[in-house]
C-alpha cells in the first residue's frame, strides 16, 4: 500500500519519477546511463537529507500523523516478545484505542500500556482514531497496578490526537480517569518509561505519560492543544495551524529545551514510516537502556526523582523577598 505523499516530499517524488524515466529509457534503447542514474540517486538522497534536516514544526506534525507510520502494536511486535494482551477495565468495557498487556523487552518482563490508531476506516472505527474513552485510561491503570503487584515495570507508548470528546466520555468521567492516572502514576512503585511515538495530544497523552523517563521520537510531537485548534482560537481560523505549530514549541527538540522530555530517539532518514524495523530497533535499544538504568535505582529514590522531575516544570518570575510561608 502506497502512502499519500506529504507536500514537502514532492521534490523527492519528482526526482524519483525522473530516475524511473531515465532507467526505462536506458533499458529501451540499451544505452548505458549508469553514471546519470548514479548521480540522480545521489541527488535524491541529498534532497531528502536537506528536507529532513530542515523540517518545520508543522511538517513534523504531518509526519507524526502519517498513516504509514509505525503504531503502538507495530512497535510491540518488533521491540517486545511474548505479548499477552489483557482486555478491559473490569467495569465498563475494553477500549481498543488503548491496548495493554504483558510483554518482554529483551530480558525484562514488563507491562505495556499503549495508544493505537488505525490505518484504514475499518481499523479506525475499531480504534476510535486512537482516542481513548475513560475505560481506556482505567484499563491502563488496572494493568499498571498489576505491574506494581508483580514488580513489572511499565512501558507506555503514547500516540493519540487526544482523549475522546464524546457524550459517553463525559458521562463516565474522562476527566477523573485522567486525573487519577496522573496521581497514581506519580507514586506507582515500579519504574515507568513513557515514549511519545507519534502524536502526544494534550491531556489524553499525559494520562499515560507520567514516567521516570519520557522519550520522544524524532518526528513525534507533544502539545497542549492541536495546532488546528490553537489556530482557531488565536487567529479565529484553522488555516494558521503551521504558525500555531511553530509557536506551541511542540517538536522533540523544543521539548528537550523545555525539559518536558528526557531523550529524543532518532528515526530512519525520511521518517519512521520509511522503515518500521529500523525505527523499532532504535526505540527498542533506547527503551532497554533507559529501563536498565531505572531498574538499578532504588525505588524510593526513583520516586523522589520522578516527583522532582515534574515538580520543577514551569517558568515564572518570583521576587526575592520571602513571604510568610
Amino acid at each position, binding site marked *: 500500500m502506497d502512502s499519500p505523499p506529504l507536500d514537502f516530499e514532492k521534490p523527492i517524488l519528482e526526482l524519483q519519477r525522473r530516475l524511473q524515466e531515465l532507467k526505462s529509457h536506458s533499458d529501451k534503447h540499451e544505452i548505458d546511463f549508469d553514471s546519470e542514474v548514479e548521480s540522480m540517486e545521489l541527488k535524491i538522497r541529498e534532497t531528502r537529507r536537506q528536507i529532513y534536516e530542515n523540517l518545520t514544526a508543522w511538517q513534523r506534525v504531518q509526519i507524526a500523523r502519517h498513516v504509514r507510520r509505525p503504531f503502538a502494536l507495530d512497535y510491540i511486535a518488533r521491540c517486545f516478545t511474548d505479548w499477552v494482551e489483557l482486555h478491559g477495565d473490569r467495569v465498563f468495557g475494553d477500549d481498543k484505542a488503548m491496548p495493554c498487556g504483558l510483554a518482554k523487552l529483551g530480558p525484562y518482563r514488563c507491562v505495556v500500556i499503549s495508544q493505537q490508531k488505525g490505518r484504514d476506516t475499518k481499523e479506525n472505527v475499531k480504534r476510535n482514531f486512537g482516542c481513548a474513552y475513560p475505560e481506556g485510561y482505567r484499563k491502563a491503570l488496572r494493568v499498571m497496578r498489576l505491574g506494581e503487584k508483580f514488580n513489572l515495570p511499565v512501558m507506555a507508548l503514547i500516540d493519540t490526537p487526544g*482523549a*475522546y*470528546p*464524546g*457524550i459517553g*466520555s*463525559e*458521562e*463516565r*468521567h*474522562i*476527566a*477523573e480517569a*485522567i*486525573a*487519577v492516572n*496522573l*496521581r*497514581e502514576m*506519580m*507514586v506507582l512503585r515500579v519504574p515507568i518509561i513513557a515514549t511519545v511515538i507519534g502524536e502526544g495530544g*494534550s*491531556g489524553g497523552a*499525559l*494520562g499515560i*505519560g*507520567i514516567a521516570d523517563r519520557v522519550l520522544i521520537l524524532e518526528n513525534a510531537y*507533544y*502539545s*497542549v*492543544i492541536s495546532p488546528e485548534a*490553537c489556530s482557531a*482560537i*488565536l*487567529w*479565529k481560523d484553522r488555516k494558521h495551524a503551521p504558525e500555531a505549530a511553530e*509557536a*506551541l*514549541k*511542540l517538536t522533540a527538540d523544543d*521539548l528537550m529545551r*523545555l525539559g*518536558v522530555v528526557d531523550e529524543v530517539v532518532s528515526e530512519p532518514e525520511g521518517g519512521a514510516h520509511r522503515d518500521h524495523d529500523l525505527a523499532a530497533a532504535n526505540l527498542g535499544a533506547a527503551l532497554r537502556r533507559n529501563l536498565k538504568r531505572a531498574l538499578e535505582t532504588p525505588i524510593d529514590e526513583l520516586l523522589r526523582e520522578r*516527583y522532582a522531575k*515534574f*515538580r520543577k*516544570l*514551569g*517558568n*515564572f*518570575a*518570583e*521576587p526575592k*523577598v520571602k*513571604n*510568610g*510561608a
Partner: protein
Amino acid sequence: MAIFKKPALKTESRKKREMPPGLWQKCDGCGEVVHEIELVENDRVCPRCDYHFTQTAKERIAKLCDPDSFVELDAGLTSIDTLKFQGMASYKDRLRKYQDKTGLIDAVLSGHALIEGYKVAIAVMDFSFLAATMGSVVGERITRVIEYGTAHGAAVVIVAASGGARMYEGMLSLMQMAKTSGALALHAEKRLPFISVLTNPTTAGVMASFSSLGDVIIAEPRAMVGFAGPRVIKETTHQDLPERFQTAEFLEEHGLIDLIVHRKQLRMQLAQLLAYFSSTR
C-alpha cells in the same frame, strides 16, 4: 484554553436595555436584570432564581474564611512569556491587560486560613483573569499550597474555575496538571483531606487534574463542569447533547460528584466536612 465560554442558560432574548456599566447585570439564569448592590448583598446569587454569578477570588476568600485569618502565600509569582507567543495579540499584552483589568497578578489566590477554626491550605481561582487558565504560576501556586498543607498537616481546599490549560505557555502549562496531581498524591499519603469545590465553569485540564481528585467533591448549583467543550463534542460526534449536559446536576445524577451546595451554605458545609476528617481542631 477557553474552549468553554461561560454558559448562558438561554432564555427568550430580550432587547438589551441601556445599563450603566457595572451597576446592573443581566442574570444568565432568569434573564432578569439585577442591581449590583443586590448581588453584593446576596453573595452574587440572583435573588430571583438562585443563579450563581461569578465571584472573584477575593470575594470568595472573604466569605469562606474566618475574618482576617487568610494569609496569602507566594503572592509575587508572575507569569513569563517563555514561548514568546504571538497570535493576534501577544501573551505579554494579554497578561498586562488582565492584570490591569482585575488587579490580580494571575488567576489564583492561595494561602492558609481558618474555616470555622479549622486550619486549611486554600487556593481560589478567579475566572475573570484569562478564563482562569492554568499556566506555570497557577500550577506552581496550587502545588505549593498543597505542599504547604502536607508539611503543616493541614487540609487542602481548592475552589476551582477554569477554561483549562493556558495555551500560551505550551507544554509547560500541560505539565501543571502532573505537578498538582502529584502533590496531591503526597498529601494523600499523609492521610490529609482535600476538598475540591467546582464553580462555573470548571473544565478541561483543571478538571482532568486536581479538581477531580477531591476526597469530597462539591459543585455549586448549575455550574458547568466537564472535560471537552460542548461545541467540540457536538462537532466530533454529530449528536445532540443531553439536557443539562455538563452541569453540576448532570454530574451528580451520573454519580461523579458528592454534593451540590448552595453558595450560602458552602462555608458551613466545608466546616462540617473538615470536622469529620480532622483528628484535632
